[in-house]
């Protein structure tokens, strides 16, 4: 895996996003290295989801530069953007599965759009992805409204990795999963990351996930990225919210249990 510190797969500079008078980001900078799992944390409403949407080009920032694979996301032509999209997968906070398609068809959807595959091959590959994220066999032909919240998350993840992208953006994938399921999900992400050389942009509130699989952590607060670094670096940051978050009782419990198992 290439982990040259200059090899940044995502580069955000001076990002400003605003909704009316409400400024969400003000001069935000962030670099994501190729092949790492970066955890994005921050209080509710600090703009984690908005940052994700800006990076994948769903939202026009008021100012700033965003480069993915060295290409500016907003200034590329239609074809180049299409090509970019093929190289990333996104899982939205509330799943955003297509409600009129079954789980398998949802996973097939990006393949259908982006590639010209024979039907049988597409079905086989979609089936593998669905099983990979730990969904039972009978979930394959169910509609999203017939799944539990956690199952919808898994299906969303299966769709995000359908094309074996280079980057996956995950918006709180483990929220709403049972702890065992969440841990299995973390393992899965880690495993796929190792096997496929994925870069993972991982928005989460889950300290266990941060601790277990994230190479680096970026904290969003005060409309900026307040700090980026490893878990150990985070423990030294002197900011009220960060201290509260990484030194609170839940953090201590998560760290303690991680210490015991490792």
């Amino acid at each position, binding site marked *: 895996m290439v982990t040259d510190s200059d090899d940044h797969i995502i580069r955000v500079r001076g990002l400003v996003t605003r909704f009316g008078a409400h400024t969400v980001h003000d001069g935000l900078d962030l670099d994501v290295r190729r092949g790492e799992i970066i955890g994005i944390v921050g209080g509710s409403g600090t703009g984690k989801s908005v940052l994700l949407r800006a990076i994948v080009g769903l939202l026009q920032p008021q100012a700033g530069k965003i480069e993915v694979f060295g290409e500016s996301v907003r200034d590329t032509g239609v074809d180049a953007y299409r090509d970019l999209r093929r190289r990333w997968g996104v899982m939205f906070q509330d799943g955003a599965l297509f409600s009129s398609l079954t789980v398998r068809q949802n996973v097939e959807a990006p393949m259908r759009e982006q*590639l010209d595959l024979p039907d049988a*091959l597409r079905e*086989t590959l979609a089936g593998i992805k669905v099983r990979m994220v730990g969904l039972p066999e009978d979930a394959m032909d169910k509609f999203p409204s017939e799944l539990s919240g956690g199952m919808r998350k898994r299906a969303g993840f299966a769709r995000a990795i359908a094309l074996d992208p280079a980057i996956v953006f995950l918006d709180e994938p483990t929220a709403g999963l049972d702890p065992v399921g969440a841990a299995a999900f973390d393992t899965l992400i880690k495993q796929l990351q190792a096997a496929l050389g994925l870069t993972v942009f991982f928005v989460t509130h889950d300290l266990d996930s941060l601790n277990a699989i994230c190479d680096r952590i970026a904290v969003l607060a005060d409309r900026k990225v307040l700090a980026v670094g490893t878990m150990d670096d985070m423990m030294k940051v002197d900011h009220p919210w960060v201290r509260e978050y990484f030194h609170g009782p839940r953090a201590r419990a998560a760290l303690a249990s991680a210490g015991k198992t490792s």
Partner: protein
Amino acid sequence: MTTAARLTATDDGLRVAGALTIDAVAALAPAAVAGAVIDVTDMTHMDTAGAWFLIDLQDRAGGAQIVGATPVQTQLIETVRANLAPADAAPPAPDDLTARVSDFGKRVATAGQTAKELLSFLGQVVAAIAGLLWRPRRLRLTSLVHQCQQVGLNAVPIVALMAFLIGVVLAFQGSAQLRQFGAEVFVVDLISISVLRELGILLTAIIVAGRSGSAFTAAIGSMKMREEIDALRTLGLDPIDVLVVPRVLALMLMLPALGFVADLSGLIGGAMMSWIDLGVSPAVFQARLLSNTDVWHFGVGMIKAPFFALIIGIIGCYEGMSVGGDAESLGRLTSTSVVLSIFMVIVMDALFSIFFATVGI
């Protein structure tokens, strides 16, 4: 940057070189056969599709060996292997004729079930409305006024224009026929009876079904989809009281008013065209209208209005409540709602015709 995978045959099997990714897999001949050994030493890159391809090759060759994979690649291959489709076969497709008969049966049963549910829904709504007589404070006045504006006031321009044009068309078509007998003045009776008795209210009801019935289904349906209806129930609020009664009541109040607007502008349109085309002056038109047209023609139209309103409102809200979790059912049921309510309005109109003919009005 990377070259797509190439397969070359070796003495004891197959050598894979380059990037074995999803594009390459689609392009490679699915007929490729491995020997005893699949050598992947020169494979630069592999994704899940590539891993599946190797496993598939291996299985078809009766358990060839994969050599030269890096630990990461081996792990991915094992992950994919663990997630292959279970071996048991798909269930057999049912017999064609049986399937069709059972499909027909299901449709009939569903239609019967829908009719039953619709009737019970009607009962609930009527009971809720009747209950308001005892407890008028349960009425959601703000909501009712808002709905009245939506379904009533905002529909006035389109309804008036439509009726005006209908009046014009009737006068124009009628005059062509009546002139042959020199009976031009009967155009007044033609217009007044057809507009007041039938067309005014019927066409208004059809426009309202398309405009408001569909809006009811879409609004309630999307609330249902986002579990807002369940949220209302858990808060101890009855969705019938909160959502359905104001809509149905607003429609029952407003449809007669809209019908009245339609009657007026239909007569005005007819009078204008009669004047232009036949020289029947507005004064003559008015005198003839007052002396020759029984007020019951107007009464018949107005009596029908609240019933049409009830049909449109009930069907619109019921279909909204039947929306499931997916976006497609919302679209399907919205169009069902419009088609069904227009159909039922026309059926109702036919029943009224028989009824009024029997009682002799």
